[in-house]
């Protein structure tokens, strides 16, 4: 890992302004993604992981918008000069952002069926993506698309280029989606729950493919999912989110074998795994995820936390602080630093 991160998110805040109130979907999130690293973001619904992804790509839709923070992308312009761009300050539909989107940061969305237009062939859509970002002819673009299809392991790629998304099976569609995302050789790939909608054997194929491609091209991946098993297999560094805030960050081994935040600990305990004794009651996290409109005061997890300290955890919000060699945690059990309002 080189010292300069590829993407630095600092104190990102994205709020949704609705009739009923303000939903603080992302309320102060900071992390670094290094070149070639697989960065996992894990959390349950309402934690803000998808909104974070959308903020990075600047595709947050009204009534939501980014209200604070920075998203620093370290890029190399066409003339070789290195620069740092704050994506928050760019116009979401401006030329610069559109250059970045697709070519430097690409997205693999959750639902490949929804991501492809049903009235254009998949080949056309991949070629369109190529032509938008690279100065090549139509024929050259098709050759690149063909090569991409081969790289992602789509059988009979020549034929598939001219097929429609609904003619492909779920697994092939996801591969085509990956091909489209990688067609312009982005340095950062954001995978938003790419295997949630597919079967377990297809998931294994897709994960294997992503791992291989990531190694070959040294692409960084931000891998967003709620599946702890997938995170354990794919990510090198993990961030756990809950209700728009970070709970814990650290190398994947530490997160799974030495989790520090009570939420992470409780979450890991509550999933059924292959090695535990079957048919006993699982230790559960009490209560359920509160609605984002009614976020608890102080630490967002405190109403469900066994180790909550009244007077502290329900009043002040803990900030993310280092707590190990490479681990960070937001919890008053480990430090006293709080988030400045």
């Amino acid at each position, binding site marked *: 890992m080189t010292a300069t991160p590829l993407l630095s998110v600092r104190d990102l805040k994205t709020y*949704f302004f*609705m*009739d*009923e109130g303000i*939903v603080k*979907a992302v309320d102060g999130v900071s992390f670094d993604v290094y070149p070639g690293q697989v960065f996992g973001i894990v959390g*349950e*619904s*309402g*934690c803000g992981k998808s*909104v974070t992804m959308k903020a990075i790509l600047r595709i947050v839709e009204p009534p*939501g918008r980014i209200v604070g923070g920075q998203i620093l992308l370290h890029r190399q312009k066409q003339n070789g000069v290195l620069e740092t761009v704050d994506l928050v300050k760019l116009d979401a539909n401006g030329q610069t952002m559109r250059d970045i989107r697709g070519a430097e940061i690409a997205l693999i969305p959750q639902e490949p069926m929804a991501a492809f237009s049903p009235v254009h062939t998949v080949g056309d859509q991949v070629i369109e993506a190529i032509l938008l970002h690279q100065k090549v002819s139509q024929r050259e673009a098709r050759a690149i698309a063909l090569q991409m299809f081969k790289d992602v392991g789509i059988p009979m790629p020549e034929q598939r280029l001219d097929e429609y998304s609904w003619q492909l099976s779920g697994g092939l569609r996801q591969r085509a989606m990956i091909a489209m995302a990688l067609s312009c050789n982005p340095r950062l790939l954001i995978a938003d729950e790419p295997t949630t909608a597919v079967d377990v054997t297809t998931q294994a194929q897709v994960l294997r493919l992503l791992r291989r491609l990531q190694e070959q091209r040294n692409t960084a991946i931000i891998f967003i999912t709620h599946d702890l098993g997938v995170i354990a297999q794919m990510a090198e560094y993990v961030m756990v989110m809950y209700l728009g805030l970070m709970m814990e960050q650290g190398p994947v081994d530490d997160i799974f074998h030495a989790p520090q935040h009570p939420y992470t600990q409780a979450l890991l*305990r509550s999933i059924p795994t292959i090695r535990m*004794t079957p*048919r*006993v*009651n699982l*230790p*559960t*996290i*009490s*209560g*359920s*995820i*509160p*609605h*984002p*409109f*009614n*976020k*608890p*005061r102080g630490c967002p997890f405190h*109403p*469900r936390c*066994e180790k909550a300290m009244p007077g502290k955890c*329900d009043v002040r919000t803990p900030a993310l602080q280092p707590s190990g060699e490479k681990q960070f945690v937001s919890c008053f059990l480990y430090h006293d630093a709080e988030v400045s309002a």
Partner: protein
Amino acid sequence: MSDEGRMTKDEGRMTKDEGRMTKDEGRMTKDEGRRTNEQMNNGAATEETPGAVLASKAEERVSVASNWKLVWWRFRKNKLAVLSAFVLIGFYLIVLVPDFFATQDPEATEARLAFIPAQRIHLFDGTSFSPWVYAVVGKRNPVTLRMEWRVDESRKIPLRLFAPGFSYKVLGLFETNIHLIGTADPKSEDRLYLLGTDRLGRDQWSRIMYGTRTSMTVGLVSVLLSVILGVVLGGISGYFGGWPDLIIQRLIELLQSLPTIPIWLAMTAALPQDWRPDQVFFAITIILAFIGWTTLGREVRGRFLSLREEDFVLAAELAGCSRARIILRHMVPAFMSHIIATSTLAIPVMIVSETSLSFLGLGIRPPAISWGVLLQEAQNIQTIAQAPWLLIPGVFVIVAVLAFNLVGDGLRDAADPYGH
């Protein structure tokens, strides 16, 4: 298999749908600051402490609000729709007692009083509220032989609200002779022509009031008939599928492929000329309904088809519910609000259809009165040039159609906030 660390706590809280950033009205959660204690009850699922209390009345209200209440609350927020609803209520008040709003007998013809322009009402006499109008004096132009009217500023005719006038029966029940507005002195020769008169000297305002009754009723009744036809036939088509579905679908396609205007012409021309106006009225209504149900039928069928696959319908079947119960209790309520919204949007179409037919002389015919019949009087340029107030029934059509559209849109948005 010991119970290690069992911490099943219950969610005692009414949480909204997690993580859905959609505009979901009114679903609020309880205060998160409170924790419910768990109680292990013979190893069963836990219960909550009796002491936990709901956070606020507002949340309680929302959680027990039925679908209709939620729709109503959402509708209320749409100011334009609410305003239009009031306008419609006004119209339907007229429908109930048009005689009350009329000032003259709509049939009373007096050729001498033809083409009197609309009179301007002055609301204040000096400083007190006392409506009055100037009298009009007519003189026959010796060259054109037309009556020309001018305002005689020397004479003021006082008016009053709830004045006596010609007698009528309210809803056919009891007789009265009170009208909304009229001349203060019932015995005077002077009359009030709020919107002028037509070529036969008939008071336009009164005729428009009666026209309102006819036109608004035709729209409502024919849509009601369409709804019944559409729901029943569309329902059979969607619920049973198979042959009934095939037949009804082809029928719908057949009806929809027929060109509407020629069909109307043919059907209304086929009506016997000697039918009374109210018979013609019924016939027009039924004809319009028979052609208009197809769109609704298609939609209802689509809804039934998709509802059939819903899990809650299957759950009802598995519980042992009869087919009738499933249709009436589970499926119909699911699309009722949509049907109401769609119907409300269909009524102005019917109104315009009727108006057009009658305008062309093919629908309701004089001496029956509807907006279309009234507009017949304004068919030539000369009349419009001389007596532009005869076009005012058109304004009523526009207002009614607009009001229905706004209310219908408001209902549709309120009933389906996600637009499925």
